[in-house]
């Protein structure tokens, strides 16, 4: 990310009237032509952050620098930032072309030029020839495209998208994800995308900011976030994972499930309490006949065929682990479990361990 920073958010706080802290000091720099996704469960503050950038929410404190200028006090209509709203917010009393032309018309741009531009934008979002259609006659996916065209025609430097794919069915979602990515590449606009769908975030983004309880827990490329989650919450939220308590015996040796595992992590100190995260596809099941020793043993409790792989639940003492494998083991089979050292994620116990976050989510 060597791009020039276009938007810089510094220690942004939003405390609602009832005292609820929606954003507890968020800082993030966003580059030109970057696709950044704010990912998190509902109530984590991602939409509030987006509304602050758009100008619809007044932060309690902090700065939003747009090209170096603090825009906190600017009303939405004076910001060169456009938004695609969650439920599109198209004007039902105007037709498709009038909706898209709303921005240019306000700026009193040449009618003929605007009409051409509208057609170009509609073609870009795959709605060529839809100019005269009524909004109420469009499907959800089509309305969503109109909303994007209506925002893009203003040539914003930054486009905010608030869960724009939330109302679409799975197939349409997939299509629109690719479509949005294409539009973002072709238009060269910075996209800030809000979603609670981790798969969507990983597919589309250059960088993902995982948010919870009004904080950004981790900011990084999709690969970083998936492979190197820095907290149990991030690991839990991104993809399937097995999270359990463990003890860092010493550097490169960690104990969990009653066994010692070699790992690659250092610097936790000796006998430190930690969280362990395993990805289900990284847990390997071996038959009891396998000579390996000093590893946990368990019993397969359930078996589901998931298409590409089998999903099994394996009980090891008090814990139940999720395991993905292309090789099915019938329910009741005794197995040994192994994990490669580099596949063990060791994390400090943090404020953002899952039970703390659950309490916060219930409050929100």
């Amino acid at each position: 990310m060597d791009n020039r920073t276009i938007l810089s958010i510094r220690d942004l706080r939003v405390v609602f009237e009832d005292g609820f802290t929606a954003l507890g000091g968020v800082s993030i720099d966003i580059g030109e032509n970057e696709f950044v996704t704010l990912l998190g469960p509902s109530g984590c503050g991602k939409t509030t952050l987006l509304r602050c950038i758009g100008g619809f929410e007044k932060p309690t404190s902090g700065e939003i620098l747009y090209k170096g200028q603090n825009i906190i006090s600017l009303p939405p209509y004076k910001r060169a930032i456009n938004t695609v709203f969650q439920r599109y917010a198209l004007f039902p009393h105007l037709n498709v072309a009038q909706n898209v032309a709303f921005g240019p018309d306000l700026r009193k741009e040449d009618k003929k030029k605007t009409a051409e531009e509208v057609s170009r934008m509609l073609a870009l979002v795959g709605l060529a020839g839809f100019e005269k259609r009524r909004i109420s006659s469009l499907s959800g996916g089509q309305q969503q495209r109109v909303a994007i065209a209506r925002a893009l025609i203003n040539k914003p430097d930054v486009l905010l998208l608030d869960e724009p794919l939330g109302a679409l069915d799975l197939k349409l979602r997939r299509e629109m994800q690719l479509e949005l990515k294409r539009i973002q590449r072709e238009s060269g606009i910075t996209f800030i995308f809000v979603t609670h769908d981790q798969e969507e975030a990983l597919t589309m983004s250059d960088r993902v900011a995982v948010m919870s309880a009004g904080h950004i827990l981790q900011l990084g490329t999709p690969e970083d976030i998936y492979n190197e989650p820095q907290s149990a919450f991030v690991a839990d939220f991104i993809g399937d994972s097995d999270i359990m308590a463990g003890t860092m015996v010493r550097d490169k040796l960690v104990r969990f499930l009653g066994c010692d595992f070699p790992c690659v992590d250092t610097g936790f100190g000796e006998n430190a309490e930690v969280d362990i995260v395993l990805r289900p596809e990284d847990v390997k099941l071996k038959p009891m006949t396998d000579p390996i020793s000093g590893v946990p043993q368990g019993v397969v409790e359930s078996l589901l065929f998931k298409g590409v792989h089998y999903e099994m639940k394996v009980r090891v003492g008090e814990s139940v682990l999720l395991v993905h494998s292309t090789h099915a083991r019938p329910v009741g089979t005794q197995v040994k479990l192994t994990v490669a050292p580099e596949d063990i994620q060791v994390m400090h116990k943090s404020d953002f361990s899952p039970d703390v976050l659950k309490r916060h989510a219930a409050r929100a």
Partner: protein
Amino acid sequence: MKKNKALVAPFVLWAVLFIVVPLVMVVWYGVTVEQTPAYTEIADDNGQIVFRLEDGTVTPERPQKTTVVSLENFKRMLEPTYLKLLLRSLKIALITTVICLLLGYPVALILSGRDFKRPGLWLMLIILPMWMNFLLRTYSWMSILENTGILNSWIASLREAIPAFDSWLTSMGVGKKIIFLYNENAVILGMVYNYLSFMIMPIYTVIEKTDHSLLDAAADLGASPVQSFLRVTLPYSLPGVLEGITMVFVPAVTTFVISQLMGGGKVPLIGDIIQNQFGKSSDWHFGSTLSLLVMVVVLAFMGGLQRIDKEEEPRKEVRIL
């Protein structure tokens, strides 16, 4: 489907009884007149009283009133006296409607504002006076405005207290007692007061239902608050405005109580004349004809409104009554 049809029966019965029958009666009365043939009473050869009609025939029975179909009343209706009354009614109703719109729209707009606290309470305060008897409300205005009323006594004491104010009023040619009542303005005031809430309510209902995200979207696309209002809120509230106009204009055209009380009989409206026909003059036939005239005018007016509404969006029918 059959079941559903049966469920409609009570309404059909209700509609026939209370809409169709009265309407047919009004039309029937409107197109007929009562006639008694001219005759003279004479004594026949036997000293009995008989009746001779104009064409010379003689009958022992006293000729009776008969109801005959005639367009006579329609001719009479078109006399300048009545047309002038109709025009004045339309004028006053129109002024009332415009004032109600100018006063009511901002109120509805403010009440439906996103940050407005407790709009329900304020709506209640607006509607509350409407729960009182209509006559009572109008009489209280009269006691405020009459020559020896509250307003005049306030002005009088102000004049005593502030000599400059007194001399200024005198220089403006204002007499000791200001006559507020018994003119067109008083009638308009009475109408505005009585019908204002009928303008506020439908407009408020429509604006309040408008999706706030549309205003966010307009602002996001660069619309200033004024532009947002003109391009989103205003077109959105149009159905409510049209409904409010109907709710105010229609009763304002036909009222007779307000003009009688506030106008003191000096500002008769078409409603007064119609009421007169069913009261003092007891000419139900002419009264019905005038009613038909008003009905046609109101229908034409609402037809025009409906056309505006249709242009905006093909949605609901403008309600009659």
